[in-house]
């Protein structure tokens, strides 16, 4: 095996020896990486207990680990494994959950936002009605603290599928320095769409090139929809399903909007050709044409925090989640502020909420329900949301202390959006949400980028796409 060549030693490995070594090496690598190859190192797999899937990365999972440990202390017989699933957006997250379902390895509980609430309710999630009736006394304190509009967003065909944990309305963030440079103060609560236009014009006049008065993104939340809602319309027909009285009578008998509550929203047809829809699109088209707003691009607006905090954007719609982001970007609590969305025909706002859904395939639904109840407690929500990275659904948590470090100054706007405008509605998200969102995003940019005629043409295209998706006509 060993021979001396020119004073040095060389090792001649035979082919058989090489193959043996290679085989041993391969076997070693296979054995070493077996947990990875079989997926056994994925938290929660084959480990018993509850698997809870959330949208996020391993750091987000780590953030909820404390919650899981607290839960385990109270329920020692139930192990909870947080499984963070990365995704660009909720749509991406839901697609991955569905793939897990198809692979025969669904989680027991999934954190689902409004965007996927009806998809899960129709196909995957377990209704909570019986559990809520059973534990009504225990839950009364939760419902007393949570606005009924948020709960209604998780009602589907008369049943409740999730307890909302966090939410955000599309309010208007304002860059205070830019506002002052334009000689303006924070607008009044009941400001109008015309006031908004004048504010943008003043901002544009006072700033140099490279400044954008209004920045918006092309997506369901914070895109065109708030402008449709404040014009008392939407791109989908909207009505309420019957039912749900069991919940409203039990927990919200004194709700001023009680008579309007039903068994959940139904969006089952296109409304794209409604004249009010055209009006809203045409207004946005005019903003773009005048240089007051950008043509909206796809994506989640990841660069927006940097642009806003560096004074290159004057106003943008966002929820309470933005307070922490702007704070981390270096903005002081007085550098930005928030106001309700401007009024047009109405001042109805758009909001989105999220909570845990129990999967129909969960082996131990009673244990899953304990987790759902546990995470809806105030102390649990405080653990899950130590900073304003989102808005807690419990009114009692949205307080001075919560925004003390970050601002904005007028933080009560976040929750008052629901109180002042009780007709505010969730993101229009039928079970076909992904396709509906695609149809909307596909046509918005075209609709606001050319002439009024182009706007009408894009809305006809939107109508046609929506009819195809929803099977309506």
């Amino acid at each position, binding site marked *: 095996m060993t021979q001396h060549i020119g004073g040095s030693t060389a090792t001649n490995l035979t082919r058989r020896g090489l193959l043996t070594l290679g085989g041993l090496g391969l076997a070693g690598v296979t054995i070493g990486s077996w947990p990875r190859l079989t997926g056994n190192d994925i938290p929660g797999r084959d480990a018993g207990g509850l698997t809870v899937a959330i949208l996020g990365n391993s750091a987000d999972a780590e953030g909820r680990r404390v919650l899981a440990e607290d839960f385990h202390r109270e329920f020692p017989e139930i192990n909870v494994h947080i499984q963070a699933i990365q995704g660009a957006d909720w749509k991406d997250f839901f697609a991955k959950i569905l793939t897990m*379902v198809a692979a025969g390895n669904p989680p027991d509980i999934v954190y689902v936002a409004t965007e996927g609430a009806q998809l899960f309710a129709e*196909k995957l999630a377990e209704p909570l009605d019986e559990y809520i009736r059973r534990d009504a006394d225990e839950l009364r304190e939760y419902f007393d603290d949570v606005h009924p509009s948020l709960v209604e967003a998780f009602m589907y065909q008369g049943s409740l599928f999730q307890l909302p944990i966090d939410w955000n309305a599309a309010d208007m963030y304002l860059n205070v320095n830019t506002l002052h440079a334009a000689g303006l103060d924070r607008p009044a609560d009941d400001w109008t769409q015309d006031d908004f236009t004048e504010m943008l014009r003043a901002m544009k006049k006072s700033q140099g090139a490279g400044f954008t008065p209004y920045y918006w993104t092309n997506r369901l939340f914070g895109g065109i929809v708030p402008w449709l809602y404040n014009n008392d319309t939407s791109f989908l027909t909207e009505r309420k399903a019957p039912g749900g009285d069991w919940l409203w009578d039990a927990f919200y008998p004194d709700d001023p909007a009680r008579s309007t509550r039903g068994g959940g929203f139904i969006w089952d047809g296109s409304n794209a050709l409604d004249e009010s829809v055209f009006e809203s699109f045409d207004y946005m088209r005019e903003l773009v044409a005048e240089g007051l707003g*950008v043509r909206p691009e*796809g994506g989640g607006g990841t660069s927006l925090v940097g642009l806003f905090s560096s004074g290159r954007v004057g106003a943008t719609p966002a929820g309470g989640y933005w307070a922490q982001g702007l704070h981390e970007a270096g903005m002081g609590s007085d550098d930005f502020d928030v106001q309700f969305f401007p009024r047009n025909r109405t001042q109805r706002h758009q909001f989105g909420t999220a909570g845990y859904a129990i999967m129909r395939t969960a082996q131990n639904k009673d244990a899953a329900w304990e987790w759902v109840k546990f995470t809806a407690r105030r102390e649990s929500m405080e653990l899950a949301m130590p900073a304003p990275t989102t808005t807690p659904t419990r009114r009692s948590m949205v307080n001075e202390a919560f925004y003390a470090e970050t601002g904005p100054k007028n933080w009560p706007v976040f929750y008052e959006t629901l109180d002042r405008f009780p007709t505010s509605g969730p993101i229009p998200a039928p079970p076909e949400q992904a396709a509906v969102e695609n149809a909307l995003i*596909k046509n918005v940019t075209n609709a606001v980028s050319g002439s009024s005629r182009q706007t009408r043409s894009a809305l006809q295209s939107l109508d046609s796409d929506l009819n195809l998706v929803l099977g309506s006509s």
Partner: protein
Amino acid sequence: MSSKMSRRSASGHAGTTPPSRPKPAPRRRTNNLFAWVLLAPTIVGMGIFTIVPIIGSLVLAFFRWDIISRPEFVGLANFADIALDPTVRVSFLNTIVFVIIAVTLQLGIALVLASMIQERLPDWLRVFFRSTFFFPLVLSAASVSIFMGYLFNEQFGVVNWLIGLVGLAPVPWLTTPAGAAAVVIIVYVWQNFGFSFLLFVGGLGNIPKEVYEAAELDGASGIKKFLNVTMPLLSPTTLVASVMAVITALQVFDQPYVLTRGGPGDSTRSAVMVVFESAFEQLEFGRASAIGLVLMLLIMAVTYVQFQLSRRFVFYQ
């Protein structure tokens, strides 16, 4: 090995004893087994990850399936559905136009740059350019597209800032059909031309210098040498580069998905994007399979045509 076998056989026939039935060669059987062992991982891998999914997809194309419910046999309904769907038609048309423009640019740029660095450049500079031009290919297409999205942002992008320096108005790169298509093509070509470039560098290196010297003696100029010597002798490489470039471009997904999500309108929606959207967003796996199958047939047809055409244009030494 073959020569050894033939010598043995010859000696058997030359002897005085009647020719006996040749014994099977155990050595050959061992070597066959050895070859199969070496090929096994690839065959198993291809079987599991390529052949089975293709068959599965072929079967699925005749079903309606949303992952959650039981698959339902619908015959040719998925194919009829996609034939009538304007989005599918537009996406295939977009893909074909994209392939024509992107592949032409990709091969053209790669050939020009490969020819340039092959001429009169020191070796170290050649290595530098080879690495530089190949580098984008090893980057994640999604990361590159996100980064390029920032560069081409209409309001805040560096590209429009540079355009502004020469007094021109900002270009709505990603928000108009023409601008978005241009950005997708630019990003795709920038990221992919390095592979064709390396093939051309290899091909150019294999052309004997004597042929050029003979051409020079005949009085051929630079452009004539390129057209009459380089191009014909490089034609086998060009065939390989073009076949691979076309197959890759027909499957374009990452760049339009990240940069524009297929918009504005359907202007940058590619065929593979529609497959993805049908399957993972609209939960219509049968329809997605049908579109994928049509795309596979298109790729096979285009590749077949390329090889047929190559009989006329490819010159083998």
